[in-house]
């Protein structure tokens, strides 16, 4: 086991997971001394019928202050301030956020405004500006992937000034995260694959990157094993409620791991490809994950080798000679991407040139590489990656991932 000289681990969020957890919300609210929650969601969540499910589960036992499903796909400063009016006008005293990363980030921003009784969110931008606990906040993730329900950061865009504002404080963490299998049951196959691979990447990167520690490792290994055992089954049999729940639990475990020991190059490049080309985050993660392992191979191959056990199971692990395990791990992840590609009728992209938008157009062009590499060297996750990442390094990985070629590890720049 790898034991760093120093490590930190914080995970104060109560997690309730199962097939019928939504019904427990009234009791949880009571325990938090709250009576009138504002329920937040986006249109997609409503369209999938999820708000209806939440409402039905709780309405007999709690007075819902208001329901607002007008959160845009990209959290926004003005939306947060509009929502604070809704919250105040309806005398709400708690927030329930139902959705993915953007709804949860919006809820975090809203919680600052209503708890601090403020109008200007900018006063609280940056790290550790909050000094006391906020209003009761329950998060109900609807994509088994992001892990936002466990992170103490929120990113909210100021679209007028074209900037993204980062908020970081332990007080932004929800009080309770509700993991209910009904929330991910109708997630389309292609989306299930991408978000699960995001969770897989959280677990794998937290295991190989520089903040790795025994506490986050334990969560990461469990997450990897759960995803590996259940993902393809769920894609092939979408109404497998038990498998869905296990994937959602895995995403939460991975969230606990990566919110404590941060991610690396897969996210560095993924953030920039998302920013430049608008590619969904999970898609970038699936594509870059094998490359992230190849890129750092010379520094962390014993850790990569250990991942073969949760990924492929004890038999494969035992049958693979020790010095081949790291390579086998990478091969296994490539094969998983291939299987997901096949199982989703080709919608799960295996490499960059294969990513298409709704109109069937290619989203990433080679001409984007320069901008992607430039942004990558300024992304915060690069600090946590075992190997340095400069412009040329990013280009090297981008070129290889264009058509799915394995990375030539000899070309990776190493300590001179």
């Amino acid at each position: 086991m790898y034991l760093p000289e120093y490590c930190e681990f914080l995970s104060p969020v109560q997690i309730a997971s199962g097939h019928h957890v939504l019904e427990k919300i009234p009791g949880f609210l009571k325990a938090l001394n709250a009576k009138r929650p504002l329920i937040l969601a986006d249109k997609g969540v409503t369209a999938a019928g999820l708000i209806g499910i939440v409402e039905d589960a709780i309405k007999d036992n709690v007075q819902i202050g208001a329901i607002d499903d007008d959160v845009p796909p990209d959290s926004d400063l003005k939306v947060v301030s509009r929502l604070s009016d809704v919250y105040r006008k309806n005398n709400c005293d708690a927030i329930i956020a139902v959705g993915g990363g953007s709804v949860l980030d919006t809820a975090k921003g809203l919680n600052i405004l209503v708890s601090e009784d403020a109008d200007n969110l900018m006063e609280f931008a940056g790290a550790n500006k909050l000094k006391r606990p906020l209003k009761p906040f329950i998060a109900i993730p609807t994509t088994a992937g992001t892990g936002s329900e466990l992170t103490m950061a929120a990113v909210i865009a100021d679209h007028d000034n074209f900037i993204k504002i980062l908020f970081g404080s332990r007080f932004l963490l929800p009080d309770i995260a509700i993991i209910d299998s009904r929330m991910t049951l109708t997630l389309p196959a292609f989306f299930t694959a991408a978000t699960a691979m995001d969770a897989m990447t959280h677990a794998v990167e937290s295991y190989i990157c520089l903040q790795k520690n025994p506490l986050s490792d334990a969560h990461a290994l469990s997450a990897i094993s759960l995803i590996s055992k259940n993902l393809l089954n769920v894609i092939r049999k979408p109404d497998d409620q038990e498998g869905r729940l296990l994937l959602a639990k895995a995403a939460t475990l991975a969230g606990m791991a990566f919110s404590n020991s941060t991610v690396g190059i897969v996210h560095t490049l993924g953030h920039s490809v998302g920013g430049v080309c608008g590619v969904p985050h999970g898609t970038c993660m699936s594509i870059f994950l094998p490359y992230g392992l190849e890129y750092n191979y010379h520094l962390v191959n014993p850790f990569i080798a250990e991942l073969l056990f949760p990924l492929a199971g004890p038999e494969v692990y035992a049958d693979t000679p020790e010095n081949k395990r790291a390579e086998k791990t990478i091969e296994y992840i490539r094969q998983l991407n291939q299987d997901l590609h096949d199982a989703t009728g080709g919608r799960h992209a295996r490499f960059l040139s294969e990513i298409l938008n709704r109109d069937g157009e290619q989203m990433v062009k080679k001409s984007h590489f320069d901008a992607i590499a430039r942004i990558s060297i300024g992304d915060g996750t690069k600090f946590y990656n075992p190997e340095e990442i400069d412009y040329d390094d990013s280009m090297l990985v981008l070129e290889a991932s264009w058509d799915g070629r394995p990375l030539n590890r000899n070309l990776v720049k190493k300590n001179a």
Partner: protein
Amino acid sequence: MGEYKTYRPKRKILKWLYLYVFMWFTGRAIKIAAKVDDEVKKEFDSIPNNFNVALEVLPYGPALVVGKTEDGKVQYLGSSTKDKKIDLRMIVHNIENAMQLFTFQESTAISFMRNRLYLDGEIPYAAAFVRVFDAVEVYLLPKIIAKLAVKRYPAWSLIRKLSGRVKIYLRAGIGV
């Protein structure tokens, strides 16, 4: 010699002095490296004009303040942040952690990982400044030590390293 009382400086004061001298020299070296090294120059080009960066040890300093003027010149602005507009702060929590970092027992990357060094400001500029700092350490320090300080020791040509090192030492030391 007169009748002076012997004054025993506490270890902290010695450490502070070490840091003061080290950071003063590094600050001057950064300004010169921005002139003699193309990569450092490029990094500063990515930072806006009228922008100051401070590397600061809490609670009593010292600090290293460098900045770009209105017209884009790189300047060393001294060992204190007092009364200066600081746009990006890199803060070391205490003097012991600063000693670990600046006696190269621990790389900048690992200091970050262990939350001994934290950032207040925009991350892309911090990333650029860390690259500047790394390059200057490669110039100033012998390879065996610089290797402990930076994440990846670069494969620079001997000419680049030596000529840069001579220029930086001469100008930072003598001020020519």
